[in-house]
């Protein structure tokens, strides 16, 4: 049944988008995680990448979560001499997470997730119509 293939492809999209959401929530949760040691590096922002891979059984390009990359941009530096993670000059490195960017990303992931759900819904209704031919 080919419609079930469509649903399986959309499900791969759902999986990939929820994996992306997991990484975004990780970033938001760790937005203020400083280093364990004095002068060390704090949490580095992670980024999800997608790869499309050929699924032989489905004969289609399904999407998967690729390698999770780290954002190489600069850390935020604050001068807090009393902080346990402060270096010799009293500066503390904070993660390079911008919560505004993360929220935007989260919304985008949500929209893509909804789009995949809509495809599943449409395929399901088409299957239903096929079954209705039998009922007539």
């Amino acid at each position, binding site marked *: 049944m*080919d*419609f079930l293939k469509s649903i399986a492809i959309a499900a791969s999209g759902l999986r990939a988008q929820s994996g992306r959401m997991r990484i975004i929530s990780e970033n938001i949760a760790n937005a203020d995680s400083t280093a364990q040691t004095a002068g060390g590096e704090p949490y580095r922002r992670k980024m999800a990448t997608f790869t499309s891979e050929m699924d032989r059984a489905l004969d289609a390009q399904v999407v998967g979560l690729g390698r999770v990359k780290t954002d190489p941009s600069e850390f935020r530096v604050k001068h807090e001499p009393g902080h346990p993670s402060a270096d010799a000059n009293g500066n503390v490195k904070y993660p390079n997470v911008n919560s505004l960017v993360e929220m935007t990303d989260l919304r985008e992931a949500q929209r893509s997730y909804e789009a995949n759900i809509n495809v599943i819904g449409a395929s399901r209704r*088409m299957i239903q119509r096929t079954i209705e031919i039998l009922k007539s």
Partner: protein
Amino acid sequence: MSITDLPLFSMLRTRMQWHQERQRVLAQNVANSDTRDFKPRDLAPLQFEPAGSGTAAMTLRRPEGIRTAYAAGSMSGLQPGQSRSFETRPSGVAVNLEDEMLKVAANQMDYQAASSLYTKSLGLIKIAIGKR
């Protein structure tokens, strides 16, 4: 010759298979909407050979006409269970989610139209048989 081999039915069946295949291609586009370097694809529009549908319908009274129509028309030569392959072609440089959703909705409606027609045609045959 079975009822489902009638030109009308086999055309509708090809049409429904086309929509099924298109749904798969569109699902692929939507799933890969955030993949880098992914080119969206779409199926080429379905076209029936004009000789196949028209003459087959007109020559219903002549058995030899039907036979030749079946042999000649690739459209009606479709075997049950054997899916016809449709041409896939690129449809843009990047996935536009709104466009894809519109296509999915249109595909679903057209499929429903085709399946309704199929149901009605079956009803027509049933009336002819006298069992309704």
